[in-house]
């Protein structure tokens, strides 16, 4: 059944004690595995009557957990600022394998559509591919300079696979995107989005932002790049949420979208399976979600979310989103039919 973004409606609003930095969803369920600022993974069933986060145990991470993927319904892999990848038995919520993966902070993990390969990016500016079963490193590559043009440490926040798993894209703080062939590790394309690099040379001499989110269109032809636009005052996330969409094979920029309705940082992006709309989410003091018509570049629908969103998960039919972020988890539906009244009652979040 096709979705209808204009019907977006919040159905759950759950308070959590920590800041959720990343999320993975157990297929066909409301069970979310999220990584958080308390250095832990948690599982929560958002469809439960009283959803409660349940922390994973054992010797876990030593810092913020910033990436999590499910390689099988019962196996989660998480990455953290501590540079480690940890494999977990979801049922027992215990670690089963640890790999020292990066020299510096891991910013994001993604998993290939076939579930066999994990990609991690970190501030050592490396992208590394891992065998999801064995934990073996398959390949590493980088096209990202460790130092910005203004001589400060750069950062590598974003990585994504194409829908067919053929391509992988990585994007850094200064707005450089490299596109790779997954099997060979050879670079097949580049995109520059310097508008996402917010260096302020006069007033404050620093920058925040960079590329925070990447997504391929379902046909892999387009790549969407998200972050924050030109900031007048980089003390705050006080600038339009910014997205650029490129036809990367032609080297053309299709859209440059500065969303004035929400001053925010774009933290996550997702295309719908038909490629008609692009979903973006993120936040500043609170959060937002925007559906953009990919053809016209115009917003189809947009709304506030009650917290700064760090990552999204979508359901199988792409008409329900699970957003995790600042002390909250929110579920929203955008189905064509009216949402069932039983799930429409928002929970009172207590974690603010």
């Amino acid at each position, binding site marked *: 059944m096709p979705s209808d973004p204009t019907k977006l409606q919040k159905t759950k609003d759950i308070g959590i004690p920590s800041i959720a930095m990343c999320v993975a969803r157990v297929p066909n369920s409301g069970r979310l595995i999220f990584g958080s600022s308390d*250095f832990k993974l948690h599982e929560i069933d958002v469809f439960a009557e009283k959803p409660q986060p349940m922390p994973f145990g054992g010797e876990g991470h030593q810092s913020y957990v910033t990436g999590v993927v499910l390689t099988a319904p019962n196996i989660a892999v998480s990455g953290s*600022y501590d540079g480690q990848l940890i494999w977990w038995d979801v049922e027992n919520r215990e670690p089963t394998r640890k790999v020292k993966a990066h020299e510096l902070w891991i910013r994001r993990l993604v998993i290939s559509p076939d579930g066999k390969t994990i990609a991690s990016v970190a501030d050592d500016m490396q992208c590394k591919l891992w065998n999801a079963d064995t934990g073996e490193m398959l390949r590493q590559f980088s096209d990202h300079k460790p130092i910005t043009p203004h001589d400060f440490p750069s950062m590598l926040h974003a990585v994504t696979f194409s829908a067919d798993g053929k391509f992988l894209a990585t994007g850094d703080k200064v707005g450089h995107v490299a596109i790779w062939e997954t099997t060979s590790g050879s670079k097949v394309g580049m995109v520059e989005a310097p508008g996402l690099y917010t260096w302020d040379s006069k007033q404050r001499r620093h920058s925040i932002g960079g590329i925070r989110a990447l997504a391929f269109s379902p046909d892999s032809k387009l790549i969407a790049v998200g972050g924050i636009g030109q900031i007048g005052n980089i003390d705050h996330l006080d600038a339009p949420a910014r997205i650029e969409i490129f036809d990367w094979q032609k080297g053309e920029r299709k859209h440059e979208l500065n969303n004035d309705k929400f001053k925010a*940082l774009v933290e996550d992006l997702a295309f719908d399976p038909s490629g008609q709309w692009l979903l973006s989410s993120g*936040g500043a003091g609170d959060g937002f979600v925007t559906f953009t018509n990919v053809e016209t570049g115009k917003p189809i629908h947009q709304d506030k979310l009650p917290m700064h969103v760090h990552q999204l998960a979508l359901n199988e039919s792409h008409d329900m989103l699970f957003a995790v972020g600042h002390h909250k988890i929110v579920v929203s539906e955008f189905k064509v039919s009216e949402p069932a009244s039983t799930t429409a009652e928002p929970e009172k979040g207590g974690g603010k």
Partner: protein
Amino acid sequence: MTVSRRGFLNAAALGTAGTFAADMTRFDVLRQSSWADEVKQQGKRVILLWLAGGASQLETFDPKPGRPTGGPYRAIPTSATGVHISELLPKMAARIQQTTAIVRSLNTKNADHGGGATIMETGRIKDPGIEYPDLGAICAKELGRLDSAVPDYVSMYTSTEGRRKGTSGFLGSRYAPMFLSESMQPENIRRLESISDIDHQDRLVLRDLLAKKFTQNRYSDSLGSQTQAYQRVRGLMASEKLFDIEQEPAETRAKYGPTQFGQQCLIARRLVEAGVPFVKVARAWWDSHGENFETHRELCADLDHSMSVLLDDLKDRGLLENTLVLTFGEFGRTPSINASLGRDHFAAAWSATLSGCGIRGGACFGKTDEDGQKVADGEVGAGDLFATILTALGIDPNKEYHVGARPVPLSDFGAKPIKDVLV
């Protein structure tokens, strides 16, 4: 032009303007320093690395790893046993024992940029009745020489946000900073091409001759200050090269690195080496209401490298034992993390460091509670920090200035030096 100069000066010396002949020697006074007895606290210097906008103590010198307020970064051990600082400062971690004391228990009460800056610049709260001098002006007065040929208070603040020049308050403009805001070179320090060096010198001589006659029977400190200001012009112009880092070997420049802050630290080293008693280098802008961790990753790298190289360089040149290097800004940042992963203004429990002259390296004074919300032990205010700084420099913090009839001690009433961090 050489001929014409001799013409005028000879005439002045020989008699037409003979009554002024004796005054010609005044210009040699600058070089011969007959005011040697004015020299105080010989050779002591200060470099203040001003972390404008407010750096986070949790991402620098008072980490709280694993606490809800702690943020993502680890704490790392330093060369001082038992003292840990943020992993964002690895180079400084290796130098704590040798050079640096940390004060972790500042409660300065005002978390407003302007008010906080006033407190941390002057060591006391604003008083509408008195314009207090800032630390730079106090040091210029206490450590400088009246007839100094180099500037005695240089302040660099090249970013525009929160820019503050500094103030000499009731000490008067003689101790006001030479302020570098637009470029790395002071303004008006270079002779215009339209005037020859000889003419530039001669007109100052002539100015002084005429001024002497006017000031002879008029009694005013203000009048004297004008004469002094013009007499310092040539000396200050000669110090132009101090601001030119191209004068340094490529190797040294490479050590300090390419960032502006690093280069300004190199200028600061050149200045103190030449005898400038107080140099402030403002690194703006740390006001990380959004993306605090990203901001600190960027700015701490700059601070860690520049401060470490500066301390090493001072040490290698034998200057560190007489040079006090300070780091602080107007306040710290909230332990709680806001929705933009930022930290906000916070003055209730934050940190400063003191390195070098008079300081016990490796000392770590005061404690905050486990989440860094409050001072748990050894609470000190800006006045105490100032008393500590002055004591480290061999200046009596209880010494009084007189503003009209009002006695004003150098550091605030009741302030006490932190003995634990002093040698």
